[in-house]
């Protein structure tokens, strides 16, 4: 089952400064009748246990030197995030694995996103597709811009790198999703997206998105 994600868009000022950075995304319809925020299926739980066995101390220590996580560390530095303080997605997850003694289940959708991240090194986020307008892209936040389109949404600081659709910012790059845009019990369609810096191959990102799609489309 081939998956060719939409590369998304990038505002000119971002493209100029961070050439090659893209936001591959795809839309999927998870199996109905199963809550995305509810408990995981036995198959997903078994996969998490299997990955917990594969990720032990030595590999956790070495993760920062592996090619894909290292590329995200560099991007973090280049956009003003210190990866020793704000951990990259994979490093944060494997650190939790060490502290918790395994990859713990946090609900079906969270587990599927975690499996894709652990397997490929490429992070994937999910948004409720029905609350989005058009493709997602990367741009800078504007002065006084609200974070999301919910009433009472907090204002963003100007000049932050955000994920946005055609109408509003819906997530901070490598940060929080805007209020009201995270998938919930009513979500029928998901927009999955990743952040692909130059140096991370299409293969990794497509594999991450494909894993999410196959696990959710198969009901886990």
């Amino acid at each position, binding site marked *: 089952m081939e998956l060719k994600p939409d590369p998304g868009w990038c505002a000119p000022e971002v493209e100029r*400064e961070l050439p090659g950075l893209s936001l591959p995304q795809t839309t999927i319809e998870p199996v109905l009748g199963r809550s995305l925020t509810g408990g995981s299926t036995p198959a997903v739980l078994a996969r998490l246990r299997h990955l917990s066995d594969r990720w032990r101390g030595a590999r956790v*220590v070495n993760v920062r030197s592996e090619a894909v996580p290292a590329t995200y*560390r*560099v991007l973090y*530095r280049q*956009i*003003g995030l210190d990866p020793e303080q704000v951990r990259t997605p994979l490093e944060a997850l494997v650190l939790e694995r060490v502290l918790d003694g395994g990859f713990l289940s946090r609900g079906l959708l969270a587990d599927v996103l975690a499996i894709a991240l652990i397997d490929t090194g490429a992070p994937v986020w999910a948004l409720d597709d029905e609350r989005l307008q058009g493709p997602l892209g990367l741009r800078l936040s504007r002065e006084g811009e609200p974070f999301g389109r919910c009433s009472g949404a907090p204002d963003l600081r100007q000049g*932050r*790198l955000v994920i946005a659709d055609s109408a509003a910012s819906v997530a901070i790059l490598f*940060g929080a999703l805007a209020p009201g845009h995270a998938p919930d019990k009513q979500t029928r369609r998901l927009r999955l997206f990743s952040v692909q810096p130059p140096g991370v191959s299409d293969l990794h990102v497509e594999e991450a998105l494909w894993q999410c799609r196959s696990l959710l489309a198969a009901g886990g």
Partner: protein
Amino acid sequence: MVPTDTRLVLTDGVFTAQLDAVDVPARHADPGERGARDTLRTQIRRLEHELSMLIVGAFPHVRPRDQAAESLGGPRLLSLGELERVRDELVDELRDVERQAHERAEIERRSRARLQRMALEPAHHKFARVEARDVGGICGVWQVRPRFGLLGMLAGWWELKLSSGCP
């Protein structure tokens, strides 16, 4: 002033940043400034890579600096001055980790030499101890002990033994 030759020089195991101070707002960048920022980003990539390899190679005896770098306020496009600051902090951190790795290597070199002397002449190093982790091991202690306890002590039979001590 826009730097035309920005590079890092390694002298006696220490990186020295050679870049003139510049700070021009990012949004009005001319091609020269853009080139300088590209150079800084390349330096950041290389420094981050070297730092990670050094930390992984010398784990658990070296660690990155504990104190947080001054926050730049979330993900954003950095100005030339900010990129320079990130680069300089990486240079400092790399120096610090290199110093720790060097000190650690010196401890291990001395411990190995001592262990060798203990192995060659145990009777001259009665009850001397060397931690296994100080000679590249994980746990346990090398110790010169008398063979057969009190009898060996009286007879002068000494040997070098590794006691496990591993959890």
